[in-house]
């Protein structure tokens, strides 16, 4: 057994240009104590902060959350919305892969034998941008998402959405990129009508199953509700209001 946590790049948070390189073994607690990182990507950090308890936060990592490939992983939709890359390192060197391409289904990843994720790369946060993540759980803490929604969006000077990305968790075998939902926001002022269209498109993209944590119909309903709420938080952050 090899303890990869003794490799410096695995345990460090470094600036990469205006973006961030977060070693795969950096704990969620440590990320959330890094004020500049939280300021750049509050949605990603909030999502990671929802994983488990305080004592789990001291051990939990986003790379672990990703490679565990649980459909309800909280940090994954937030990372996908933010446009994060996973740095995959193996015998043939390293490659940077969009986070959404790592999980392939429950408990399964696209990593080849001998490969591991060594870092999560968060891009530079564009000006007038915001991100957010919300999940639904029946309790207030220590639970697994019934639905999770990550949204990141960018505005121009007039308040028109120029870029958007939405990702859904726990409503399919792996994280879902809601491309049509993003298109429903881009070019709008993200007014109520646009947000409703966005929410409807997120709902249409969701393909949940019924299980002990919620029925498929309930999950579809919650997807729309959370999508709108999450987009509103991202919007207020993009406007510098929150």
């Amino acid at each position, binding site marked *: 057994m090899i303890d990869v946590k003794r490799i410096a790049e695995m345990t460090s948070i470094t600036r990469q240009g205006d973006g961030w390189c977060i070693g795969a073994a950096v*704990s969620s607690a440590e990320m959330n104590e890094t004020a500049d990182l939280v300021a750049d990507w509050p949605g990603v950090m909030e999502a990671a902060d929802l994983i488990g308890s*305080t*004592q789990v936060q001291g*051990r939990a990592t986003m790379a672990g959350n990703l490679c565990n490939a649980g459909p309800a992983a909280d940090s994954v939709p937030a990372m996908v919305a933010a446009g994060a890359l996973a740095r995959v390192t193996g015998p043939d060197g390293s490659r940077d892969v969009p986070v959404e391409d790592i999980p392939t289904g429950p408990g399964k990843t696209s990593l080849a034998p001998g490969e591991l994720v060594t870092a999560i790369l968060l891009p530079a946060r564009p000006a007038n941008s915001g991100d957010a993540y919300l999940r639904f759980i029946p309790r207030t*803490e220590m639970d697994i998402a019934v639905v999770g929604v990550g949204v990141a969006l960018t505005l121009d000077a007039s308040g028109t959405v120029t870029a958007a990305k939405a990702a859904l968790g726990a409503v399919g075998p792996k994280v879902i990129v809601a491309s049509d939902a993003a298109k429903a926001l881009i070019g709008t002022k993200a007014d109520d009508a646009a947000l409703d269209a966005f929410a409807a498109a997120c709902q249409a993209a969701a393909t949940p199953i019924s299980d002990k944590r919620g029925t498929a119909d309930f999950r579809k309903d919650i997807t729309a509700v959370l999508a709108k709420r999450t987009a509103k938080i991202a919007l207020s952050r993009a406007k510098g209001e929150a």
Partner: protein
Amino acid sequence: MSQIHVTTTVNGDATEFLCEADETLLDVLRDHLDLTGSKEGCSTGDCGACSVIVDGRLVSSCLMLAAEAEGRAIETIEGMAEGDQLHPLQQKFLEMAALQCGICTPGILVAAKNLLERNPNPSEEQVRYWLAGNLCRCTGYDKIIRAVMETAAEMRGAA
């Protein structure tokens, strides 16, 4: 497979042990070092009964391999009292009966101590969220939360 030799610090004392690669820190604390105050509730990070502090950070010792303790500073419930002098949290838990069966209590005391070191004046909400990963099936939590709040107030007054 040969055992791993680990040099670490436990409750301020330089400590060495041998462990298997797949043994957790909790296994070693309890079975090799006879520090049985940290409890094994679930072994999956859900219950918080095995909470310890590693380099100032609260972790579930069941989620950490013992070999990772090399060069770290570990604090357990056994290091909380100074001789016969109980930590204020321990004293307050007794006075306010913030425990019943006691299995979860070491983990809660370690977690609460770490909270008060980071934030001497937490709100009730902050205490409840901080301790959300410490499951207790007896008390209903209210006495625990009140004991932590009371201790925090007294420690601020004493400081």
